């Protein structure tokens, strides 16, 4: 009965309205149903949530949600009423905020394993990076090139993952696509990505990329990785290959 099925309410027990614990039974059934549908074995244990400013920045930049007057976040519902067909593939958007790496110019991203899912295919991955202008800006330069290297890969221990020439008229966010090879490490078991961010022309241009700063000063401008992933059951993926 408790198995995930196309009929959500079938997983809810039939209750006698009289029993006072009926309500708590129903709440437990709703909890179990939500965890089932999210493919989670148990509710995540949140020990250090992302600073709200960083969260709201990411949601606003990605147009995933907006903050209502009451302070709650509102997201766009997927417009699909009626009997939607159950997709063998569930797509998700994952926003992963950078953690500090072993050196100041390295950032680390970690993606969680979801219970019971065979395969995660990364369809798209972008790094969002905030470039901050200092007051000693050299106006002669209007663009700089940012490069991302994947630590531990390639000949000299690093592989160029991506590079992008960005406009620096003002401080702001820039998206830098992550290459297929770097995406591949996110789909495997360790699901982590360590990137070194370089920008040779930045010092002379009076601009710097905000990375995973040890101080809270720049928390709201912490870099984040935006992933579009598809969890597929292994057999579905194999059929697809065939």
């Amino acid at each position: 009965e408790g198995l995930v099925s196309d009929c959500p309410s079938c997983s809810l027990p039939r209750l006698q309205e009289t029993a006072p614990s009926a309500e708590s039974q129903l709440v437990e059934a709703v909890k179990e149903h939500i965890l089932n549908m999210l493919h989670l074995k148990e509710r995540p244990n949140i020990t250090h949530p992302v600073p709200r400013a960083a969260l709201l920045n990411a949601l606003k930049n990605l147009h995933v949600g907006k903050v209502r007057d009451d302070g709650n976040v509102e997201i766009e519902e997927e417009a699909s009423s009626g009997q939607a067909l159950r997709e063998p593939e569930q797509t998700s958007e994952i926003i992963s905020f950078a953690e500090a790496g072993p050196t100041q110019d390295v950032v680390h991203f970690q993606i969680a394993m979801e219970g019971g899912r065979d395969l995660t295919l990364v369809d798209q991955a972008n790094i969002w990076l905030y470039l901050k202008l200092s007051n000693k800006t050299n106006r002669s330069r209007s663009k700089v090139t940012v490069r991302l290297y994947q630590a531990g890969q390639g000949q000299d221990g690093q592989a160029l993952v991506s590079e992008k020439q960005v406009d620096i008229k003002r401080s702001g966010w820039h998206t830098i696509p992550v290459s297929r090879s770097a995406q591949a490490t996110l789909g495997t078991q360790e699901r982590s990505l360590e990137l070194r961010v370089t920008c040779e022309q930045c010092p002379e241009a009076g601009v710097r990329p905000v990375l995973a700063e040890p101080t809270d000063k720049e928390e709201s401008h912490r870099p984040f990785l935006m992933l579009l992933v598809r969890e597929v059951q292994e057999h579905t993926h194999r059929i697809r290959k065939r």
Partner: protein
Amino acid sequence: GLECDGKINICCRKQFYVNFRDIGWSDWIIAPIGYYGNYCEGECPSHIAGTSGSSLSFHSAVINHYRIRGYSPFNNIKSCCVPTKLRAMSMLYYDDEHNIVKKDIQNMIAEECGCS
């Protein structure tokens, strides 16, 4: 579909709203603030089996066709009160690595109930 109002005992939809703050889940679920865990309940006497939900119209036409002729392969079928229309729900939540996940989950909210 019918809404359960406590006066009828035939197949209907029972609304059940859960506010995530009330159940201590608002720390990991960023949005929405709650979930309509609606469910279906009530009897499905044979004379109304398969009569609700536009999606079952073909089904009920076949049943009525046989019933008019007295013979029906559906006579001894016990039908069940199930959702006949479901809606997706988008959720924004923290996963175990404190990443933020946005997921559009199909068939998450029961909008209408009917006899299968």
